[in-house]
C-alpha cells in the first residue's frame, strides 16, 4: 500500500506516522511538502498528520486546509483513495469540508495528553474493517481542540448514517459516549468517516500506539493492519 504523508509547516507528527507505517506495514512512505500541487507517485493512502500546522493560529487546521497540496488530496479522495487525518489532520479535514463538523477547544480549555480508550462503532469502512464492532482500543490523545461539534440536525444525520467510527469509552464497562470524552466531544465522538468510508478523521494518535517498547501501547499496530487488510480485500478505489 503506497502511503504519502503530507507535511505542513508546523506538522510535528509527520515523522512519527512515517515510522509507524513503515514499521508496521513494512512499506516505504513518501513525505510530501504542502506546497506541492500533486503527488509525484500516486499513493493509495494519504495521511494528514498531527501537530500544529501554522502554529494552530487563527483556527487549528484552517491555514493548512488552504495549502496547494489539498486540491490533490481532494481529487485523490474523490477517486475513492484513502485519506486519514489524525488529530491536526482531522482538523484539516473538517476545515476543507471533506468531513463534516468542527473541532472546538476542549471544555477544560487546556491541552490534554494522556492515554484514552475508544470503542469501534462501525467496521463498514476502509479503516476499521479488520476490527470487530464494539472492540475497545487504547490510543493516546494530545490536543487542545478536540471537542467534536456539529449542529444538532447534522449531528443526527451523521449518527443515523452510521459514520461515527470511534467513540470515547470506558474500558471496564465497554460503555461509550459523551461522559467518557476527555475533551467534551458531542456524543463522545472521537472519529468519523466520509459517506463512502474512504476518508477517516480521528483525534487520538494510533501512531503513538505502534512501537511496542514505547509507552503508548500497541493497539495502533492492529489499526494499521486493519487498513492493510481492508485494502487487500476491498481495494482502495
Amino acid at each position, binding site marked *: 500500500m503506497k502511503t504519502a504523508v503530507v507535511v505542513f509547516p*508546523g506538522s510535528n507528527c509527520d515523522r512519527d506516522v512515517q515510522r509507524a507505517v513503515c514499521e508496521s506495514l513494512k512499506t516505504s512512505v513518501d513525505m510530501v511538502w504542502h506546497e506541492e500541487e500533486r503527488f509525484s507517485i500516486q499513493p493509495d493512502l494519504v495521511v494528514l498528520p498531527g501537530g*500544529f500546522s501554522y502554529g494552530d493560529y487563527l483556527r487549528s487546521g484552517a491555514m493548512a486546509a488552504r495549502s496547494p497540496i489539498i486540491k490533490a488530496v481532494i481529487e485523490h479522495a474523490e477517486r475513492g483513495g484513502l485519506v486519514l487525518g489524525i488529530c491536526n489532520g482531522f482538523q484539516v479535514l473538517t476545515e476543507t469540508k471533506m468531513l463534516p463538523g468542527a473541532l472546538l477547544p476542549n471544555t477544560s480549555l487546556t491541552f490534554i495528553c494522556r492515554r484514552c480508550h475508544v470503542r469501534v462503532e462501525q467496521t463498514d469502512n476502509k479503516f476499521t474493517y479488520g476490527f470487530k464492532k464494539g472492540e475497545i482500543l487504547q490510543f493516546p490523545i494530545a490536543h487542545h481542540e478536540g471537542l467534536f461539534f456539529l449542529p444538532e440536525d447534522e449531528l443526527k444525520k451523521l449518527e443515523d448514517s452510521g459514520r461515527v467510527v470511534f467513540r470515547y469509552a470506558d474500558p471496564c464497562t465497554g460503555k461509550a459516549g459523551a461522559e467518557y470524552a476527555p475533551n467534551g466531544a458531542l456524543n463522545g465522538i472521537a472519529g468519523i468517516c466520509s459517506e463512502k468510508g474512504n476518508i477517516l478523521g480521528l483525534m487520538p494518535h494510533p501512531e503513538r500506539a505502534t512501537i511496542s*517498547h514505547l509507552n503508548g501501547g500497541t493497539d495502533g499496530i492492529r489499526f494499521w493492519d486493519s487498513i492493510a487488510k481492508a485494502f487487500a480485500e476491498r481495494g482502495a478505489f
Partner: protein
Amino acid sequence: MDYKSAGLSDPEYRRIIEILEREPNPLETQLIGVMWSEHCSYKSTKRLLRTFPSKGKYVLQGQGENAGVVDMGEGWGFAFKVESHNHPSAVAPFQGAATGVGGIIRDIIAMGARPSVSMDGLFFGDPDLKKTQNLSKGIVEGIGAYGNAVGVPIVGGKTFYSPCYTDNPLVNAFSAGFVRLDKMASSQTAKKGDLAVLLGSKTGRDGIAGASFASRELDEDSKSSRPQIQIGDPFEEKLLIECCMDLLAQNLIASMQDMGAAGILSSSSEIAHKSGCGIDITVEKIPLREKGMAPWEIFLSESQERMLLIVEQDKLDPVFAMAAHYGLDCAVVGTMTDSERYRVYEHGELIADLPTSILGDATEVVWPSAEPKDIRERITMNPSSLISAEPERDLLSMISCPNGRSKHEIWEQYDSMVQLHTIDGPGSPVAAVEVPDTARVCVLTMEAEPNKCRTDPYIGASETMALSLRELWITGAEVLGMTNCLNFASPEAPEKFYELEQCVKGLADTCRSLDCPVVSGNVSLYNETSGGQIYPTPLVVTAGLIEDRNKRLASGKAATGDTFYLAGDLCGSLGASRYQVMKNGTPAGKTVAPDHSKEKDFRERALKTAAAGAASSGRAVAGGGLAVALANEAIASEKGISIEINSSVPPEEILFSEGGARAVYAVPEGKEQVFESIWEGFPCTKIGAVSGEDFEWKEMFSIELSKLKKAFLEGCF
C-alpha cells in the same frame, strides 16, 4: 551614555578605558555593559564553576559551548543543557515560561542536534495563595503552549512548592537532542571571510536589556523599567529547527550560535571571540520588525526565534534557498575578519570598534563569603515535635500534600509522546527515551532539594546529586554527565554567597568522587524581592545510558508474587525531610551526608541487579522516605503491598526519614537468591511482598489501594 545606567561599576569603567586606551562611545558603553552583566558574563560564579569536574570518558563537549555533549554510542551524541527563565516568568508567566522553553531548544540546535526531549523544573510559592495559582497556571500553560507546538516532548520535570518562591517563582527549562557525531556544530569554527547570516524572526524591540534585567533583584521599579516583553512563536521555531537540520545535513553551516540574552551582540561577539576571529557587522542589513530602532536597541534586542549562522561565501545560495523553502527570513549581516575586533558599521560609518576579547572577558568579581549567623538554628530540630502518633494519617498527608501528590495536572498539559521515542515519561522517577535507531536507552533525572540546601548547603547539594545518580544506577544506567542550574539570591550578601559556594562544592565533590562530569549549566542570581530570598536551589539534570533496553529496570512494575526488599540502611534522617517540613512548617535539621564509598558500593550492586534481571521493579528512597517510596510503588504498579519491619526505631524514622543510598526492589519469585547474593555484604532487608488490595504495614496501618490512589491523584483523603 552614562556607564552606570549601562550597569557598569567605577572600576569596570576604568578598566574599559585602560583596555581601549580611550573612552568608549555611548554605543560601546551599552554593548560592554550588557556583556559584562552577571547574566552574560558569569563574573561572580566563573571561579566556582571551574571547580566542577569536566572530564569523563563519555564527554564529547564540556562546558563552554551552547550545550554539553556526551557519547551515547553507535555514532550518537547527546547534547543537553538546562537554563533558567526566572525573572521573565515572574513578570509575565505565560510568555516568560514559553520563551524559556524556546530559548533552551535553540541552544540544542546550535550544537547541530535535533531537539528531542525537554523537561521543566518549577518552583512555586505557597500553593494556597491566589498569586501562586495564577503564576503557576500561566507558567504551565506557557510551557505547554510552546513545547506542544514546537513538537519536543516534555518527558519529565520537577515541581516544588515552598513559600520562599511566592514572589520569586523559578522556571528552569531543560532540553536535549541527539546528534550524529559527524554533524555536530560548534560556535568556535568561524573563519575569516565567512559570512554572518541571521536566520529566523525579524528583530523588534523585545526584551531589550533583558540580560541586565535578569542580573538584579526584582523590585517595584522593575515594573516600569521592564523591557518590552518577548513573545514566543513556536511555529517559527519549528521551522527554524527543520531548516537548521536540513542545512546541517547538507554541510552548509560553518559555525552557529543561538540568540539568547543580549541577542545579536552576544551571539556574534561570542562566535568571533571563541573562533579567534573578528567580525564586521552592518546595522542596516539586519531585518527589523519596527521602524526607527537605534543601533543599541538592535544589538541588545532579545527577539526570539533567531539563529546566527556562519556560512562560507560559496554556500550562501543554497542557504538562502533553504530559508525560502521554510518561509524564514534570512539576511547576511556581517563578515568574519582576522582583526580580532568587533566592529559595527552604520551606512558606512564605523560606530563601534572593540577588541572581541573585551566582550568575552569580563573581570571576575569576588564576593565576600560568611557562614549564615543562624546556621545552628537551621540544623537544629526538635525530635519531640516529629513523633508520628497517627502514621496512617501522616502517610496520607505526605502523598497528598502539594509536594507529594501526583503532578499529572501539570504534565498532562504537556505533549510527552511526540517524536515517538518516549519509553517512560512524566510520572516516572526517571525519564527514558530511545536513542534513535538503536536498542539503547537514554535515561534522565531532574532533582532539587531546596529544603536540604537551606539547612546545610553542602550536604543538601551533595544529596541532590547523589540521589539523581542513584536513580540512574537503579535503572541499570551508566552515568554520562550532568547539567545544572544554580538558582540563588544575591551573591552580594556574604551569607548568600556562602550558600552558593557550599552548594557548588557539594555538587563538585560528589560529581568528582562518583564519576559524573559536569558538561553544561547555567546560573541565575538575584532571586529575591523585598519580600524575601529563595532557598539555595541548585537543580541538576543527569543523563545515563542503558545499552540494551531489555535490561532497563523500571519502577511501578511490581507484580503478584514479588517480594520487597530494602537495599540500604533502614533509616536516613528526618532532617529537612518532607515529613519534618510538613510537621514544623520550615526546614530544620541536616540530612544524611552521602558516604561516597558506600554510594559506589551501592552503584555496583544496583547495576548488577538490573543487568541480572534480578528485580521486576526498583525505586530510590527519596522525598517522603521509605513509606512514600513504597506507596508510590503500590500506586504505580496497581498492586497491594504488605510490609513488616521489626525494629525498635520510632515509626516516623522508619517510615519517613530520607537520605542515604537506599532503594526498594520488587523481586520476582525464583530471583530471591540472585538478588540476595548481589546485595550480600550491604545492608539489605526483606521487608514484605506484593499482596492483597491494600497498602498494609503490619502493626502500623492498612490503607485501601483506592484510597491511597485517590489521595495521591486528587490531593485529598
